[in-house]
């Protein structure tokens, strides 16, 4: 054994001399931290899933609230007397009503007293002609200008009525859509009320307080969940920290190691959590409010909520890992190793 005869570039100083331990570059800490994450991937994912859940909860509450607020604003803006959109729609509605009226009367008269058909004449195939059945058409545009049977008989006898019918369908369809848009706020209000969301200004204010509680609760869940996960994962490595100190690691190096590890976990977990939370609230609001959810999406407040969630998630993760790691690093190595894990 020739330990003295080595390839090292490190000189061992004589007895009685002491030097200062070198500070390793950040790159070295990153290398070791990255290796740690890769090797402990399953454990790491378990901890990260805690972060993801907490952040998804927080994000979905903030996002749902922001979207609800967006819908309220849309409603308020639409109903305002000077709303250009509202006036334009009303104008359009009158135009369409004026145009649909003569078509309606024309078809109606033909339908209630259809001309007799010749004995062997085959009735018009409604579905083939208009591309949809009578029932489907009724669902789309509402009541037809007359009894369906009469209409079909009339159109069979007088084929020029088919074109009139087509025009009526087009205009009536647009009219229905316009009326629906005009009635949007009422429909939304009904939807909100049926799902227990307030629409009256005073109740909305009370709701906000409730939401604040909910956000507080979500923050608490994130706080406790993330700190617990990180504390656990660091505490089980106390022995490792003690060993590293025995091998010559500086306190700062150990803290750096855990900052990098937790930063990585925090960023990944938080981003996934935010995406999950956003998706959940988008889907949830779409199911409950349909098209209204997308009428006036408050992208600004959503972005702010994402920012808040990101900061909360990453800061909590790093704090939750670094505080115990720093505590362990400050201990005498022998004490750190003695801690039961």
């Amino acid at each position, binding site marked *: 054994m*020739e330990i003295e005869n080595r390839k090292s570039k490190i000189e061992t100083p004589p007895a009685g001399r002491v030097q200062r331990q070198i500070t390793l570059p950040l790159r070295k800490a990153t290398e070791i931290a990255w290796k*740690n994450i890769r090797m402990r991937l399953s454990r790491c994912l378990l901890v990260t899933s805690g972060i993801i859940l907490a952040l998804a909860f927080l994000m979905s509450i903030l996002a749902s609230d922001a979207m609800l607020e967006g819908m309220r604003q849309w409603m308020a803006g639409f109903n305002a007397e000077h709303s250009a959109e509202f006036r334009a729609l009303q104008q359009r509605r009158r135009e369409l009503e004026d145009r649909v009226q003569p078509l309606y009367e024309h078809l109606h008269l033909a339908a209630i007293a259809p001309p007799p058909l010749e004995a062997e004449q085959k009735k018009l195939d409604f579905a083939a002609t208009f591309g949809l059945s009578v029932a489907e058409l009724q669902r789309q545009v509402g009541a037809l200008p007359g009894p369906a049977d009469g209409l079909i008989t009339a159109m069979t006898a007088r084929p020029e009525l088919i074109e009139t019918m087509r025009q009526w369908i087009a205009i009536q369809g647009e009219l229905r859509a316009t009326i629906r848009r005009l009635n949007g706020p009422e429909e939304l209000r009904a939807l909100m009320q049926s799902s227990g969301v307030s629409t009256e200004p005073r109740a909305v204010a009370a709701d906000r307080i409730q939401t604040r509680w909910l956000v507080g609760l979500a923050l608490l869940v994130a706080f406790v969940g993330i700190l617990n996960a990180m504390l656990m994962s660091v505490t089980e490595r106390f022995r490792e920290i003690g*060993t590293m100190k025995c091998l*010559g690691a500086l306190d700062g190096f150990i803290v750096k190691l855990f900052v990098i590890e937790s930063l990585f976990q925090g960023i990944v977990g938080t981003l996934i959590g935010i995406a999950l939370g956003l998706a959940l609230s988008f889907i949830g609001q779409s199911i409950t409010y349909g098209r209204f959810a997308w009428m006036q999406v408050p992208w600004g407040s959503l972005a702010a909520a994402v920012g808040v969630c990101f900061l909360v998630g990453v800061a909590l993760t790093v704090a939750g890992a670094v505080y115990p790691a720093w505590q362990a690093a400050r201990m005498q190595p022998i004490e750190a190793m003695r801690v039961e894990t």
Partner: protein
Amino acid sequence: MTESAPTSAPDTAALSEYTVRTIDVTRVYKMGAEEVHALRGVTVSVQRGEYISIMGPSGSGKSTLFNMIGGLDKPTSGKVYIDEVDIAQLDAYELAWMRCRKIGYIFQTFNLIPVMTALENVMLPMIFAGLNTADAQDKAAEILRKVELGHRMMNKPAEMSGGQQQRVAIARAFANDPAIILADEPTGNLDLQTGTKIIELLRQLNRDSGVTVISATHDHKMLAVSDRIIWIRDGKVDRIQNRADLKIEAGTIQGAQGQEIH
């Protein structure tokens, strides 16, 4: 083991040189209002290249003295010199340097880093010492081959037996060519045969490299190869036995030890 050649480690030139000296060391722990005197004035000197065992019953202050010598704990009063450096005077950076370069630790529970391979475990102290990765790799591989683990370099601790893990730990302790190897019950978690091999390895490395080995142990086999045994009782040095006395009293030591432990 008693048949091995008479001690050759401390030749006359080295006799004046001590790797570890403690002078009237006391250590008081505060447990609430109560003061526990773990050490009550211990003065010992360990020569370069010696193979020392520290013995004593639980609560005798043996572990405290051991930690003191290893720079893992600081005395309440008195002085501890490691390689002629007073450890009480060191700041965190100097202490880390001492642990990295002057002392190699071997633990009862091996304490390998579980996510690292044997090679990476041995490289770690070298990385801390500032050696570049390529050189560290070469040197770590060389040491691992010396402890006959050349074929397990890429294995993780969980994939190795206890004896193999302890040999990796020994290789790691030797990574930076320390002046002292501190072994805390190195055979405590190993079976008889494996323990014997570990002791032989430590003794061989001690002879070959002239490193000072200090171990806290209950293991008879460990005592048998020691140059000196320091018996600690009630926070004081009870007696120090030299190898020469050891041979004569071989029977009585084992008897005495039995009483001490049980």
